[in-house]
């Protein structure tokens, strides 16, 4: 008998269906992956199993756990969850009560399931130390918090663990470690796992079975090998294709330098009165490198390594404490970048949702950087906007619309259009595709490659996605704790990583799906 049986499940909100006629069996011992993009209904399905759907949801169909239909009584349902199901959520910061220690929160889970909890033991099982139990969530790192969440889920010794995007808020190295931890624990405790993710490679690495969801329906399900090796549904094929990045052939000839970074450092003083001022934190530490014209250079490193700070200084949003930059022969320190040179440097932000002012039309937003070029006639301005939006493959009529009318992929194209409107020579790309659904990432990367070719652009790509870096970059700089610790051509570097961090990054890479 299957542990979880879902029969013809439909969920809708205010008449709008979110999950439609979904049926699914999860056997004991399965590691069941559910793949889908945002809004596909995969998380709602998991919530339906645990009876945690929002009150406003309308549900039909049936869910059986261990052969019995889910109890309708709230208290019984709650106790069932507590005893038999452990859950791990995406964002461990908000999923933990900020006012309670980790140990108390784990202990509470045990108490609710009437199990004497060995908190220290659980902490050790998930790779934490007993002293961590006395800490509050904000005193732990993201990875540690997610481990604490897992410990909490294990406290009731559940038969089923549901992990909902447990790693997408974590950086690459931690992500891999947490995935491995979940895999190990399920193995050891013979726990059934439902793993929900948008990352097909994470599912491939962890699961034995998989269901692919799209727009509230399952388009394909089966054993992981069967689905991945011979995908039947078109959508599955698309997902698989998008997860493989083709390496673009690049010529690697020596080029004249466009931007030189010369021993740049950035210190942050922590605010406060002069008497209580704390020792400054050095975010970027004497970094030097240069970018050749037409070159694509990637800056990789774990979060907090200083790569974003460096990018912000290069584009003129922040100033260096020491050292200087030289762009096309002109010296600057950051914010003092003169307007005309600013026009030659653009930044594409990671999050396409927050990079447009919701109160402005796309045209106004796109036209904003044009002021850097001085006075301009209306016609000239109009021409530039049309040119820019056309160059990213969008229709100029969209200029009069507002950003919220566009999808994530379209917005990122618009962001690129805004970056292109001043005809810059250097584009800084801050995680240009990581906030996008997998299926559109490839398009955006293709667009970037095309633009580079057409306009002879120089790219500085900030990323932690080694596959993307390998596909796009001529040269890779690896950063840790404010310093560049290693650099080289991607193939060389990935084949023979010298530095410990680089090796860790390589190790954390999920295997390619065949």
């Amino acid at each position, binding site marked *: 008998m299957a542990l979880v049986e879902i029969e013809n499940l439909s969920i809708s909100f205010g008449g709008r269906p979110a999950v439609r006629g979904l049926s699914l069996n999860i056997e004991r011992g399965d590691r069941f992956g559910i793949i889908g993009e*945002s809004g596909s209904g995969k998380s709602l399905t998991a919530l339906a199993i645990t009876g945690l759907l929002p009150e406003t949801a309308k549900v039909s169909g049936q869910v059986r756990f261990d052969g019995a239909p889910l109890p309708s009584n709230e208290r019984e349902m709650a106790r069932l969850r507590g005893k038999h199901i452990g859950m791990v959520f*995406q*964002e461990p910061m908000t999923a933990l009560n900020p006012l309670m220690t980790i140990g108390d929160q784990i202990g509470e889970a045990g108490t609710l399931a009437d199990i004497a909890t060995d908190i220290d033991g659980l902490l050790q099982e998930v790779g934490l130390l007993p002293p961590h139990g006395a800490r509050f969530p904000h005193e732990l790192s993201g990875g540690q918090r997610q481990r604490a969440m897992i410990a909490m889920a294990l406290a009731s010794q559940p038969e089923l663990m549901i992990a909902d*995007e447990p790693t*997408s*808020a974590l950086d690459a190295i931690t992500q891999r470690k947490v995935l491995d931890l979940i895999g190990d624990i399920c193995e050891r405790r013979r726990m059934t796992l439902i793993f929900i993710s*948008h990352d097909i490679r994470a599912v491939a690495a962890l699961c034995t079975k998989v269901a692919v969801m799209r727009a509230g329906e399952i388009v394909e399900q089966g054993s992981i090998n069967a689905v991945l090796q011979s995908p039947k549904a078109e959508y599955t094929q698309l997902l698989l294709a998008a997860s493989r990045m083709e390496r673009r052939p690049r010529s690697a000839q020596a080029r004249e330098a466009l931007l030189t970074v010369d021993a740049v450092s950035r210190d942050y003083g922590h605010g406060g009165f002069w008497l209580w001022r704390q020792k400054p934190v050095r975010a970027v530490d004497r970094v030097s490198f240069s970018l050749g014209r037409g070159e694509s250079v990637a800056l990789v490193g774990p979060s907090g390594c200083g790569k974003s700070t460096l990018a*912000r200084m290069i*584009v*003129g*949003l922040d100033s260096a404490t020491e050292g200087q930059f030289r762009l096309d022969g002109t010296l600057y320190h950051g914010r003092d970048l003169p*307007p005309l040179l*600013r026009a030659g440097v*653009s*930044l594409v*932000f*990671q*999050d396409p*949702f*927050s*990079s*447009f*002012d*919701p*109160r*402005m039309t796309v045209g106004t*937003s796109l036209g*904003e*950087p*044009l*002021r*850097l070029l001085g006075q301009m006639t209306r016609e000239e301005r109009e021409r530039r906007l049309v040119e820019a939006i056309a160059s990213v493959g969008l229709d100029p009529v969209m200029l009069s619309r507002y950003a919220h009318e566009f999808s*994530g992929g379209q917005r990122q194209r618009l962001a690129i259009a*805004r970056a292109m409107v001043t005809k810059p020579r250097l584009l800084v790309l801050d995680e240009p595709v990581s*906030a996008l659904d997998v299926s559109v990432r490839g398009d955006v990367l293709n667009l970037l490659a095309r633009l580079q070719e057409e306009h002879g652009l120089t790219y500085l790509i900030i990323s932690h996605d080694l596959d993307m870096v390998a596909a796009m970059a001529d040269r890779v700089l690896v950063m840790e704790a404010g310093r560049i610790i290693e650099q080289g051509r991607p193939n060389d570097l990935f084949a023979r990583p010298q530095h410990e961090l680089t090796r860790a990054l390589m190790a954390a890479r999920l295997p390619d799906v065949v």
Partner: protein
Amino acid sequence: MSWRHNPGLVGGLIAIIIFAALGLTSLWWTPYPIQAISVADRFQPLGPEHWLGTDHLGRDLLSMVMHGILTSLLVAASGVVIGIGVGVPMGLAAVAWGGWVEWLVLRLSDLAFAFPALIVAILIATLHGPGELNAIIAIGIFNIPVFARVARGGALAIATQDYVAAARLAGLGNAAIAARHLLPNIASLIIVQGTIQLSLGILAEAALSYVGIGTQAPETSLGLMLRDVQGVFLIHPWLSVLPGLTIVFLVIALNIAGDGLRDAIDPRLRRQGMNHGAG
């Protein structure tokens, strides 16, 4: 944000419009001139001649209430205008410039918070003599730090958005960023806070006039009407009940409209927030 889904906003707004219309009409027309005193006609009951009766000086109560609503709304609104006019630029400047500007704005608003509004009103009343202007200034001063904080809080959240960074990249200065990006995006917050402060202002005006340092005769306001007849409360309770209930309904209408506005605006903000952590 359909109107049908927000009956509070609609009802509140309609009520406010009716109140405001009554008040504004009193500028051109009231059933009787409010300064026409006719002691012989005092304490008339409700009737065809005086729909809501007359007060202790024989003035027509309907006319008084109409004009009182106008005064109360004007005083409260002027206080809000002062609060927004000074507070919002302060809050925006704190965010756009940061550093010592922010420190100064925060300390100034702390200082203003430290002085209870009523005490400020009493002191101003002794400086300038009691009157509407005094009530407006006192309420305005009280509003400044409120709006400064709301503006700063809202703008802080906006300032971390990438489009603000994009604007900086486009060469916009602090003032331009505050005006083009911060202000329009906190406008809804300010409007919501404005309705709240408006209703507080009406209560404050009533309280100030009640202790005798607000509106002065021969002008009239709802608070002054309450003060004038407090001695005859037991004999002619209607004279207290009428302005009292008018205040209650006016404030409720404003609060309901404010809540409705917040509900209308909030989901959008919340959706934005959710999109943020898109997963």
